[in-house]
């Protein structure tokens, strides 16, 4: 193109309302650039991003004055799209545009050296002009998308996302690893801030899900293979095993079977609070209400089957099911969280039998739990309860040790929901068993929830709940009182900040640890999907403000606590946002990607394969055989949908010109550098 047509560069310098022009002598820069070869237009404007500024560009293009646009202004992350739009509207290919950052990289950082800053601005813009000269018109990469969504996780986030997607007419595959829907929410009783029953809310959501023909439920299923890219994710699913119980056992039969079962296992639903057998019943709030066998623990001894006269309704042989292959346009990750498990000895955990966690306590207080009617622990009435806050959260600046399910890492984040949940629990104890003394031993409290921010605290403090504050450098200690052997209570030693750092001892019949959230154990899935995780081990979004629910791989969205600790409200909001984003992607039958990806020249490529080894993005580049002029040539080929344009392949390629990133060709960069180092005489 450049041969056909003379390149005419237009340079537009922005004052940024003084942000730039107060330091940089923009007029001098303009004059200097006007003299620069190939620059035909050099203008400046108070705000290039304003309509008037953009019109300058459009008019110059329309008048045929320029065919390359260089705007020297702020960071491209702010206004690249703005000026690309102006270029396009002027009638030019939008990729013939180059942005030079003379604000963040010049005026702001050199505010004390205006002369130097002016000089630097000239250099930077010259570089931009040099690069613009080398730009080729490009086209966005178009990918046809499959109109189907895959939702991983059947908790409240997954359910919500599936519901919203289906509502916009998109078929949804809802995959859940466990035999039941509902996730963590299913094991909650009443939820803040409304005090509604979690199971009721969940049930109404589940009813909508199961009655929706667009949603395919895949329970007891996990992902075994994950490839592809936005619009075309290829997923292989495997059913972990059938429920093991066909049809329905009546309660009596189930009891017989459970009695016969020799495997006593921790009950995950009750957070190991009450043990259960490997064959067990569905819990209230679970969907479906079908009993199941836990294959992680079942040894297939057959005793349950024997006890029920070898009924055919118990199937212990798992027939290896075939893999299910799916193609989905978008994927929503709603894999949720796990409750933090304290290390042995953390605040007396697994040392004193009176120490339990908040999720366990919630189960015990729920209908059917051991505290439903009487407040007794191991046969003794509970007179005092201590709730220790921030267990497994905010583990910074103190004597913290990693919990059992934290991969040896400390959790520095706040889990956010525990304050409200703890106070809710405290209030519930006071309401149902008013004679009990309740102590909240906290580090800091923030019961955030819209409209009810202080209600829980207000209620608790008026109910006579006693608050004690510790700090991270002197953590509370749970000890057995030395003076009495018969005393079944434990004492919690607290250096109470509210009582002027007095060391106090709190007697407690029951200690509740308000454990935080940790990311659920999804390492295999994370490895398969190649999705980034943050330093807190939760899944990482692209940008917390600008793209809060998207992952770096286009087409994968986050819904809920797989991303960070959230309450149900926030999870639902995130899930709806993820669903909307999915629907946006799938609304057209194609999606557009930026064209800045690697491109191989098969005629030059020697087929060394070094780039394939270097590439971080699985499948973005691979070796192919092509027959050119009757000769089979082995060469690299880029999958534009998967390539991120990082340029690692370009760097390792031994053959000059064989591979280049579009929009950032080596030649262009070279010219740019040349222009940078030219002398600036002002």
């Amino acid at each position, binding site marked *: 193109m450049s041969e056909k047509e003379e390149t005419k560069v237009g340079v537009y310098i922005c004052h940024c309302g003084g942000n730039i022009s107060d330091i940089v002598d923009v007029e001098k820069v303009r004059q200097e650039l006007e003299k620069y070869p190939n620059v035909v237009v050099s203008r400046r404007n108070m705000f290039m991003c304003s309509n008037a500024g953009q019109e300058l560009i459009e008019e110059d293009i329309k008048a045929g004055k320029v065919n390359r646009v260089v705007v020297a202004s702020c960071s491209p992350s702010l206004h690249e799209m703005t000026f690309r739009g102006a270029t396009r509207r002027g009638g030019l290919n939008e990729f013939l545009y180059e942005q030079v950052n003379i604000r963040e990289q010049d005026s702001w950082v050199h505010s004390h050296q205006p002369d130097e800053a002016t000089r630097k601005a000239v250099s930077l813009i010259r570089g931009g002009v040099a690069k613009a000269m080398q730009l080729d018109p490009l086209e966005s990469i178009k990918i046809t998308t499959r109109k189907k969504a895959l939702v991983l996780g059947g908790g409240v986030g997954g359910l919500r996302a599936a519901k919203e997607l289906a509502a916009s007419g998109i078929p949804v595959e809802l995959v859940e690893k466990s035999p039941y829907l509902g996730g963590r929410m299913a094991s909650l009783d009443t939820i803040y801030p409304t005090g509604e029953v979690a199971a009721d809310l969940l049930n109404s959501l589940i009813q909508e899900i199961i009655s929706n023909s667009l949603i395919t439920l895949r329970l007891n299923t996990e992902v075994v293979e994950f490839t592809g890219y936005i619009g075309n994710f290829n997923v292989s699913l495997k059913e972990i095993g059938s429920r093991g119980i066909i049809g329905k056992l009546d309660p009596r039969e189930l009891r017989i079977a459970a009695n016969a079962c020799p495997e006593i296992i921790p009950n995950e639903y009750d957070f190991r609070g009450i043990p259960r057998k490997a064959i067990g019943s569905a819990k209230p709030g679970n969907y479906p209400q079908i009993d199941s066998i836990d294959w992680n623990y079942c040894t297939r001894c057959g005793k349950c089957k024997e006890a029920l006269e070898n009924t055919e309704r118990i199937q212990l042989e798992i027939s290896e099911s075939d893999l299910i292959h799916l193609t989905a346009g978008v994927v929503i990750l709603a894999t949720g969280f796990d409750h933090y498990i304290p290390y042995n000895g953390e605040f007396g955990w697994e040392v004193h039998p009176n120490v339990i966690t908040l999720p366990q306590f919630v189960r015990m207080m729920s209908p059917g739990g051991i505290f439903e009617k009487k407040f007794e622990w191991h046969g003794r009435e509970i007179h005092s309860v201590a709730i220790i806050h921030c267990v497994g959260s905010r583990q910074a600046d103190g004597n913290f040790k990693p919990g059992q399910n934290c991969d040896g890492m400390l959790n520095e984040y706040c889990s956010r929901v525990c304050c409200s949940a703890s106070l809710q629990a405290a209030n519930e104890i006071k309401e149902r068993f008013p004679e009990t*003394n309740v*102590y909240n031993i906290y580090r800091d409290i923030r019961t955030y929830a819209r409209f009810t921010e202080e209600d829980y605290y*207000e209620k608790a*403090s*008026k*109910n*006579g709940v*006693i*608050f*004690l504050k510790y700090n991270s450098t002197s953590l509370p200690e749970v000890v057995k009182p030395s003076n009495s052997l018969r005393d079944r209570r434990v*004492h919690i030693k607290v250096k*109470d900040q*509210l*009582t*002027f750092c*007095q*060391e*106090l*001892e*709190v*007697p407690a019949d029951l200690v509740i640890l308000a454990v935080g959230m940790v990311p659920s154990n999804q390492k295999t899935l994370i490895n398969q999907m190649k999705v980034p995780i943050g330093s807190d081990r939760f899944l990482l979004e692209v940008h917390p403000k600008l793209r809060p629910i998207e992952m770096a791989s286009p087409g994968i969205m986050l819904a809920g606590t797989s991303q960070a600790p959230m309450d149900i409200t926030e999870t639902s909001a995130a899930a709806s946002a993820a669903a909307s984003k999915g629907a946006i992607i799938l609304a057209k039958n194609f999606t557009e990607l930026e064209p800045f990806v690697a491109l191989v020249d098969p005629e030059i490529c020697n087929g060394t394969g070094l780039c394939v080894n270097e590439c971080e993005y699985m499948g973005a580049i691979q070796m192919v055989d092509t027959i050119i002029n009757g000769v089979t040539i082995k060469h690299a080929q880029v999958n534009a949908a998967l390539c991120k344009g990082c340029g690692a392949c370009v760097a390792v390629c031994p053959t000059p010109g064989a591979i280049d990133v579009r929009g950032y060709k080596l030649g262009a960069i070279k010219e740019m550098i040349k222009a940078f180092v030219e002398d600036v005489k002002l």
Partner: protein
Amino acid sequence: MTLINPETLKEIKTYSTKDFSVDACFNCGNCTAICPISEEGTEKGIPRTLIRYAQVGLKNKLLGNRLMWLCSYCNDCTETCPRNAEPGEFMMATRRWAMSQYEVTGIAKLLNSNPLFGIAAMGIIFLISLFLFGVFGNPTNISSERPIIIFNLVPKIVIEIIGIGIALILIAIIGLSIINMYRLISKEYDSNFIQGFEIARNTRKNDKKLNTVFHLIFSPIIMVKQAIAVIIKEIFGQYRQLQCTLEALNKRKRREFIIYRWIMHLLILWGFFGLGVATILNMLRDNFLGSIPNGYVPVTYPIRIIGIISGIALMVGVTLAGLSRYRKSLRYNEHSLTCDWIFLFNLFMIGLTGFILTASYYLTFIPAELGYWVFVLHMIFIIELVILAPFGKFAHVWYRSFALWIHYGMQAREHKLANELKREKAKIEKAKAAA
């Protein structure tokens, strides 16, 4: 080990007729900021500190706090409290509770926390006194002749023996209670004092004076000086109360005519004191100078003048106090206990019977017999007042005065020590500079 005890607060709350929600206190310290008697430092940051101690049940810390006795319930704390925790009422209840803890017999506890006990006690004392007067008295001596010679009805010796006997028992109870109070305060003060003067202790480890409060209290010059100050300034001037009142008045610009309270209190105090002086002077004169011939005391007789003026002051004061309690016109007396009423009632009855007695003495149109019978009533109410004194509202007289005395003494001592410390530091620094 300091074990948390949530029962303490519940217990304290039974010492008020109001179910005030001090549990709601989140220790923000607004009350401390506005309180005219709180000072810098944890232990002196009342009422906040005390509320926290009560919440977690550090009984000794509460009982060892002398500053609560300086509080005269100006109610500023309650008005600024963002949680409506009523720190003012809490302080009042805590004082009553502390009083019943210091007091050795346990009667104060019953009297303060059980409204019926006071009434029952009044009735019993009334009947017993009546019985004693009936046994020892001689009603046949009552006549319409003038002047009224009251000891014709009940022999003086009986009154004196009963009076002295009761007084001895009560002085013993009061003494033991005060010793209790002193023990608790000095124990707490000791530890805090040493904490506060950590540097001093480290630099002068051998100075035993710093390690015990014993020297402090019995540093005779300081304590005598302070005792005089307390008696003049605090007892007869109610200086602290006036200060608090004025400060509250300035700060809050309250429409309540709060100074009314100070005057009312002074009237009662001076009236009571004057009557006591008159009675004692009378007794001394009778015993050492002999009775006035004919038994007639003219109205212009100096002791009688003191008596009449004091009586008027007492009656006016008590009436005002009673009215304000009845109308709940001042915030601090919105929640009166039975024993507060009993105290006022006894004072009022003593004053009233005294007046009727005096009137029947001088005014001939009043039958002389009435004078005799009213005198019996007068004596009975005095006995009621005196017997209930160590346990009820009256007891604040010595608890407050004693706490003030200790407080002034400690303040003076601390001041002296701080100066010494400053001088020593300056000396060290001088030596350093010289080196």
